[in-house]
């Protein structure tokens, strides 16, 4: 099994989620993160002092899937999350050695 982890622009969440579910992948875990990278944040103003926001709100989606699902998933995410503008984010893939469904104790790919 692999973990596919992607960092995307928040407003892309619904599209990406839709694309993922279309692939028949039934589960994912989402969290709020802030990203630093090529994309520069806007400047804000507070009581006469200007400053730049350099951590930009992003959404992180984590999915654990079977090896054969990875490529389809990665390209689906890449397609949906892409705006072509800087800051679209990344997709990272890593190995998962074991997976358990807490409710049933099932393990391996059945647990996904």
């Amino acid at each position, binding site marked *: 099994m692999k973990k596919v982890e992607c960092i995307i622009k928040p407003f892309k*969440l*619904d599209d990406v989620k839709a694309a993922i579910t279309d692939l028949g992948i039934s589960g994912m875990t989402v969290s709020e993160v802030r990203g630093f990278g090529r994309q520069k944040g806007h400047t804000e*103003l507070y009581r006469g002092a200007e400053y730049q926001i350099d951590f930009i709100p992003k959404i992180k989606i984590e999915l654990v899937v079977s090896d054969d699902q990875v490529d389809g998933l990665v390209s689906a995410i890449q397609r949906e999350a892409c705006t072509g503008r800087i800051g679209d984010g990344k997709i990272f893939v890593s190995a998962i050695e074991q997976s358990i469904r807490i409710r049933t104790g099932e393990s391996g790919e059945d647990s996904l």
Partner: protein
Amino acid sequence: MKKTVLTLAAILLVPSLALAADAELSYVLNTFSFLVMGVLVMWMAAGFGMLESGLVRSKNVATICLKNISLFGIAGILFYLIGYNLMYAGVDGGFIGSFGLWGPDDAAALSGDYAAGYAASSDWFFQMVFCGAACSVVSGCVAERIKLWSFLAFCVVLTGIIYPIQGSWVWGGGWLSEMGFTDYAGSTLVHSVGGWAALTGAIILGARKGKYGKDGRVNPFPGSNIPLATLGTFILWMGWYGFNGGSVLALGNAASAIEMSNVMVNTNLAACGGMIAAMILVQIMYKKVDVTMALNGALAGLVSITAGPATPSLGAATLIGAVGGILVVLAVPFFDKLKIDDVVGALSVHLVCGIWGTLAVPITNPEASFVTQFTGVVAIGAFVIVTTSIVWLALKYTVGIRVSEEEEMLGCDSTEIGMEAYPDFQRVSSGRSGISSHGVHVG
């Protein structure tokens, strides 16, 4: 409105030592009533501010705060520069007052002649705070997408010209008042006017991005702070005692004190009726009680009674309010069907119930005629629709009225005013649909 007071002042002038003594203290009481009630009405500006801050998404809260407080500042200055005289100076039966700065003249009273009935400034103060209320209605409806300065420019015209002109027709002693049109504290003159201006604005601006899904579904954008919205409603409820109670325009004798008491009691019961009716209806229709509908229901009741709070019995007042509460629950989804995006329900509360309240006056007030009331509603509605459309469009095709799609996505707070309302708190990002809690429409 004025006229009432003049006759009253006349009564006060019976020349007798004791009554002369009376006359001065009546003058003081009339004045003090304007001031105290005026403070309560000013407080409504804060109420609108909190209600709207609670009902917009967190990324637009600082902007709505700024709009709500600055529009009150604009109203004050414009009403001084042009508004007041345009509304009250030498209208006599006509369609408009005169231009010119306003200034108080209390020479007569200071030399012992209390015919004026109250200090000039106290009246100006009371009228000015009303003028601000009309703008507050607009700001909530067009929130989350309008440009700050364009909105403020609109407020300048609304408070300086549009509101005073139509106001002159009734409270200024213009043609509608001659006709016998009656609007005690402004269901039409204040609330509907704000509502019509909001309607043209909402249509010309268009809906917020993602509010209406392609398949005609409505994507709710939940308000970000329900206790603030509740506080705002409590403040408005409180302020309304002054809004309607102060509109007796006098406190100098037993008759006016009695009227004020009845007005305040009716105002309260209309709010109760509107809220409870809305809660019951929403429970029946949706099996759950939407807090924001209960809040809108209370306000609906208040708007509904505002045109005629002196004549109904307590029971009638409760029912007039209750009808308002029902109208609001039905109007909110109706405007959504029309894809008219009203962020806080201002149209349902102020426009719809403002009309209802004005038309309901004859039910309990024999002196009012349905036809005249209807005429007034239509005349003022037409005037405001036309004039505000012109202003909105003029702004649209010059400086522009709507923020860019990206600015709207990021929120007006960071793009328009460069500041976050709640910078210390982790926000839950919303998808494009903008639904904070990532809901998808069902059923």
